[in-house]
């Protein structure tokens, strides 16, 4: 596997037990992602986007097939090894932000650094920097309940990037946001992608996001039906 491959998936099958039977959520998925890509998994609700994203993130395991993420064979990796991979090299962004309600913006963003045992002075520097990136310096001591949806998602982005991961997985990050906030967030991520070479995979069916993507992988009923490269995205040119 070449150094530039961030994700490599072959013949992936994912089935969920339903009653005494199986529901096939993903089948015959073959997918590769290069470094610094800005790619979206796009498809209607129930098409398997979240399932695929979770498998790439090592939160779920495939039923069949091989998957290599950032150099780790996830199929044979233990829970703890996958946790380690997420902790050190991945960032997650969720539709409903998933901030810890009792923590301030600073503390939420600091969390991945604490998990990575970064020492406190360095933590402070990195958190301040990440919060600046998303333009929330004036809200650094607020708690999630005091923030708007857009501000929450920006906090979540800061948390996802603070340890400078190689891959960020974002599941419907704009689904709870209005157009203005959605664009603001997408612009932040485009900038991150360009300046830090961070790879992004989105799961979305939001047209606004699609306008920024440079590659769109279309999913339908758990299968990739189309994989297109967008040479000149409508939005996000810097």
């Amino acid at each position, binding site marked *: 596997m070449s150094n530039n491959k961030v994700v490599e998936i072959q013949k992936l099958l994912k089935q969920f037990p339903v009653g005494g039977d199986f529901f096939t959520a993903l089948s015959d998925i073959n997918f590769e992602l290069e470094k610094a890509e800005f790619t979206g998994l796009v498809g209607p609700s129930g098409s398997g986007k979240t399932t695929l994203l979770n498998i790439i993130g090592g*939160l779920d395991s495939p039923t069949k097939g091989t998957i290599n993420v950032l150099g780790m064979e996830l199929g044979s990796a233990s829970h703890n090894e996958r946790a380690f991979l997420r902790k050190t090299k991945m960032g997650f962004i969720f539709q409903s932000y998933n901030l810890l309600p009792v923590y301030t913006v600073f503390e939420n963003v600091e969390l991945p650094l604490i998990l990575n045992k970064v020492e406190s002075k360095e933590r402070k520097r990195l958190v301040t920097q990440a919060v600046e990136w998303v333009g929330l310096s004036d809200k650094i001591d607020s708690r999630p309940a005091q923030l708007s949806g857009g501000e929450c998602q920006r906090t979540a982005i800061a948390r996802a990037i603070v340890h400078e991961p190689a891959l960020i997985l974002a599941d419907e990050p704009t689904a709870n946001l209005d157009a203005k906030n959605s664009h603001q967030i997408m612009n932040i991520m485009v900038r991150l992608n360009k300046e830090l070479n961070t790879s992004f995979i989105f799961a979305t069916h939001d047209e606004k996001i699609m306008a920024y993507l440079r590659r769109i992988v279309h999913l339908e009923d758990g299968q990739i039906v189309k994989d297109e490269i967008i040479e000149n995205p409508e939005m996000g040119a810097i």
Partner: protein
Amino acid sequence: MLFHLAIKNLIGAGIRTWLNVFVTAVSFFMIIFTSGMYDGMRSHAKQVTIDTEVAGGAYWHPKYDPLDPFSYEDAHGIPPKEIHELIQSNDAFSVLVSQASIYPNGRMMPVMMKGIEPNQSIINLPTQSLLTHTDDLIPVLIGSGMAKYTQLKVGDTFAIRWLDANRTYDADEGVIVAIMETENFKVDMGTIWIPLDRAQTMLDMEKEATYITFSKKSATIQNKENWIYRDVNYLMRDMEAMIKADEPGAQIMYMILLALAGMGIFNSQILSIFRRRKEIGTLMALGMTRSRVVTLFTLEGGMNAFFALIMTLILGGPVFIYFALYGIPLPIDYSEMGLIVAKRLIPVYTMGLFVSTTLFIAFVVLVLSYLPSRRIAKMKPTDALRGKIN
């Protein structure tokens, strides 16, 4: 690191944490309070028994068995010389025990008739009152429990019938000269106290005694002949046995309180895991291993208990100190139930009680925090993230 996060989570949860802590603190308080009260009862009962009955110990006539009333007939004799010297120097006093029947208000009641030296000051009984002049009536001192049971008042007269040394029945009239308030039912229920010389005459047992109680500071005797030396431990052993017999009750109480405290902790822990399952999923997505999440939640539960302990000491401490100094007024008179209980109970809080309670509860709390947290280890991160729990 987990410690740091656990503190942040607890402090961050604000009022919810403090409510939990408060509830646990109340349980702690109750456990320590009841244990202290119980220890207080026990030490009080012991102290009262020594004060009103046992003093420094006793010499028994070899035939004397307080539990066998038929032994009283033969259990009397003139005390050996050295014991007699103790009595002479006011370091001991004689008691002559016999069976008798009294007829208060026409009813018959078997009693233990005890002749006691009225001038003794070794045990705390108002025996001086037996010196009251009564025109040949036998002066009788009884306890308030006995007075209530027989409905006798000071000045009431009644017949007393006894078996003398020659095994012939004799009877005479007695008069209540005093009724004493005592917490020791053993010197009260079923007992009448009369002057020693009077008893000796009535029973035709001049100079004789059944046992001799000596003071705490009296010297030990070289030659006690065949009389039996009974030390304080021996004389307290039925008292100790009673306390022992009572122990399961205290332990059940303790277990109930602990179970209540435990249920609270267990419940809030389950609730917390249910409420925070999305947070658990997020922590896993951020790369925390399941075992660390389990440890985090267990730690939070444990620290909850630690805060509770501090709160108990801060809020409950003054209460403990107040009760330890001034006692707790008791609403019921337990002596009627045959228990030695003060009207004001002074609880005893020992360092040992605090330490053992704390250690034990800390252990229980950790287990109770750990058990529910274990289900986190079985959670799938994807389910947790979706807010599902299985």
